[in-house]
């Protein structure tokens, strides 16, 4: 996946053939366009921050207020300690949800993917075909019976319906990890087999260290998916003490009724966005490789 090499050689060719002026004007045009679009993409973020620092009365004014006066830093502690938005509790619920779900997905999907990639058994190709087919399955068709199932088990109102299903692997992650494992030379796993290692040992000692980048991609995307998950918690959770951040924000807005305190809403939103953005900057490489590797749309 090394995509930078052709680019560099091309630049060198151009430099040698002396196309400096053309290159420069081309780059100028590109930069102009890029800056315009970048501003369009950044203004909503800017407005989010500005609004979060305003007084409630300054949100919708004519003319617009670009620099809040006074700057309401106190909006943040006010929003995050509000009894309608118990941030610490919501955060710990979210962390519980994301971490348990992500751990389960990574472990189970790795084990299953290994069987698809390295073990020879009857029905493997059929089963893999079914797995691919479920990739395209719209969630809508399984939603209600799954709810009924968990309702019968008395688990509606807990995190079990949100976490339990993915502990048995998900089609997408199995597919992704299996594809990645297929790129690992068979010599490496076969050598371990000749030395007498069983499949469990080969998976844990040979395969897992080699596919660490793919595991990271799976973990990051699943973490993000659960962090942003709205519909699952909305359907299954009813006690606001159990809510994750996103659902907490939704119900925070609902409590205002007609006159919403937008600066507080924006402060709370920023508190939810910041951890995700930080994660993105820490693991940017994995992110971008992951999106292109998997064809995953957004989060």
């Amino acid at each position, binding site marked *: 996946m090394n995509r930078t090499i052709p680019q560099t050689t091309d630049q060198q060719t151009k430099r040698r053939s002396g196309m400096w002026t053309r290159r420069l004007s081309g780059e100028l045009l590109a930069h102009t366009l890029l800056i315009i*679009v970048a501003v369009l993409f950044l203004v909503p973020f800017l*407005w989010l921050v500005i609004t979060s620092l305003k007084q409630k009365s300054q949100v919708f004014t004519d003319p617009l207020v670009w620099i809040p006066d006074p700057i309401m830093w106190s909006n943040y502690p006010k929003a995050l300690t509000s009894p309608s938005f118990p941030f610490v509790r919501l955060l710990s619920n979210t962390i519980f949800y994301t971490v348990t779900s992500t751990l389960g997905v990574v472990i189970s999907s790795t084990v299953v993917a290994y069987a698809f990639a390295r073990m*020879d058994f009857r029905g493997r190709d059929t089963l893999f075909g079914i797995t691919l087919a479920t990739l395209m399955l719209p969630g809508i068709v399984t939603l209600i019976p799954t709810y009924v199932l968990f309702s019968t088990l008395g688990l509606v109102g807990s995190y079990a319906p949100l976490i339990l299903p993915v502990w048995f692997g998900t089609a997408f992650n199995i597919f992704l990890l299996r594809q990645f494992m297929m790129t690992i030379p068979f010599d490496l796993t076969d050598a371990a087999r000749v030395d007498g290692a069983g*499949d469990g040992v080969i998976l844990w000692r040979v395969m897992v260290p080699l596919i660490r980048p793919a595991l990271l991609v799976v973990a990051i995307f699943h973490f993000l998916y659960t962090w942003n998950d709205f519909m699952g918690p909305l359907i299954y959770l009813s006690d606001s003490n159990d809510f994750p951040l*996103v659902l907490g924000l939704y119900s925070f807005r609902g409590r205002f009724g007609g006159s919403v305190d937008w600066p507080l809403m924006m402060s709370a*939103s920023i508190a939810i966005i910041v951890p995700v953005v930080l994660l993105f900057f820490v693991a940017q490489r994995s992110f971008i490789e992951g999106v*292109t590797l998997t064809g995953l*749309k*957004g989060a």
Partner: protein
Amino acid sequence: MASITPEANRPPIARAPRRGMSRRLRDDLRAYLFISPWIFSLLVFTGYPMLASFYFSMTKYNIVSPPVWIGLENFRVMFTEDSLYWLAVWNTVYYTAISVPLSLAVALGLALLLSQRARGIGIYRTIFYLPSLVPTVASTLLWIVLLNPRLGLINVALETVGLPRLGWLQSEDWSKPAIILMTLWTGTGGAMLIFLAGIKDVPQSLIDAAMIDGANGWQRFRYVTLPLLTPTIYFNLILGIIGSFQVFGQVLVASGGGAGQAGPLNSLLMYMVLLYRNAFRSFNMGYASALALVMFIVLVLLTLLVVRTSNAWVHYEAAPRR
């Protein structure tokens, strides 16, 4: 998305020659042990719900009392009596028909911009992708502020350039365009990165050959890059259709929750919102299952249609990717 049919170039699994059935059986059993969680999941969380939704769709069922068989009654009500049904269908089709092509075009445009050789391109890539990270509830709340009909930033900007202010989420005509606008901000980053990878995979030799033949920038894009991108466009088109038919979070937040009208004159009553209300507000599980089933069948047919027509416009003659 390397390839959906990976079996073709798969190396054989090296292994000692088989020593009788018992060894083979033991291999199978060990593999089934590894794969058992997934088989369990396929049976319990995919197979059973699919079968059950066929059954539920022919019943009257509120979870509390057992399902009562009513045959095709749910479908009759859906197609002939429920006026909200056709409204939801119309809203969803409207949203999908505009937002999917538009999102693809914007994502492709952004990717083309990012494929330019300019300094600091990584920063722009980050900026364009950043909105995709924002949770739906947070981004929708932000856009409610931006799209305020009286003094929102967007309307003030429109007025500055001499355009009329719009009602956006408060207006029957503009509420769906408002949601589409939000989707363009939050929903194009992923596709953009995929397109960018596709553009970078176009062999430089082809571009050079076209340049020698005198092709200008637009011609190089139209006749070299674009045909080679069609598999990627195709893939994103299918995912886009499936995703936007099930649009839910944005509209639920933007239209102020699950009760009352969904947006002005129910103009934001999307299919998924109708289903959510029936299933989890009034617990008409039978009717909601029928709704889900119809959506499922439509999506399968649409996907098949795209697959069928793809021969006409998707080019696979490119060198195998990666």
